[in-house]
């Protein structure tokens, strides 16, 4: 029954590795997001997809590549992991469309990535 689910919840990996975080929402929403929360709890948007199309890319390094196979899924692949990538990554979704923003954004439980 989880509305927004992401896996894995915890991930410890070495520098230089490539890893993916998967996200699925069963709310029927059109828009999905990836947010990064650093050690100071700053929550910053990385990407936003609307109906599988990239809407927002907030100057995230090219090593981060989101993929949306359908509007219910938004995965995040990270190449050549660096120490600074250690953070909690939150997937989220909302029902948005042009001219009808402001709906509640629902978050997954977060994926805690530690790069060693």
């Amino acid at each position, binding site marked *: 029954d989880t509305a927004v689910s992401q896996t894995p919840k915890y991930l410890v990996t070495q520098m230089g590795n490539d890893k993916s975080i998967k996200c699925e929402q069963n709310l029927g929403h059109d*828009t999905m*997001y990836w*947010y990064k929360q650093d050690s*100071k*709890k*700053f*929550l*910053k*948007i990385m990407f*936003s997809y*609307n109906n599988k199309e990239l*809407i*927002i890319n907030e100057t995230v390094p090219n090593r981060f590549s989101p993929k949306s196979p359908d509007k219910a899924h938004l995965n995040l692949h990270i190449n050549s992991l660096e120490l600074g990538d250690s953070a*909690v990554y*939150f997937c*989220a979704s*909302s029902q*948005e469309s*042009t*001219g009808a*923003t*402001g709906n*509640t*954004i*629902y*978050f997954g*439980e*977060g994926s*805690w990535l530690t790069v060693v």
Partner: protein
Amino acid sequence: AQTVTQSQPEMSVQEAETVTLSCTYDTSESNYYLFWYKQPPSRQMILVIRQEAYKQQNATENRFSVNFQKAAKSFSLKISDSQLGDTAMYFCASSSGTYKYIFGTGTRLKVLA
């Protein structure tokens, strides 16, 4: 540019007392929405309350209410009858017509027994 500012990094309140968390925002949009989210130690982000900018009436949700001052671009959260379970990080957020929700830096609230 859309910004959200929370000037109180940490606050504490005695159980059963009332506490107010501050938030100011800036946006060039005429149509926008404001939110307060709670993040307990479990990390799950939970919606506390939502305000539509075109509505003058302040939103309320049980023990949670907001003081929305549109001209001052202020959106504070009042928690009445604080409970131990209210201990969490609280994030203020705004949303406008760009598929983007901007979050403040958060206020860590501790409810003391």
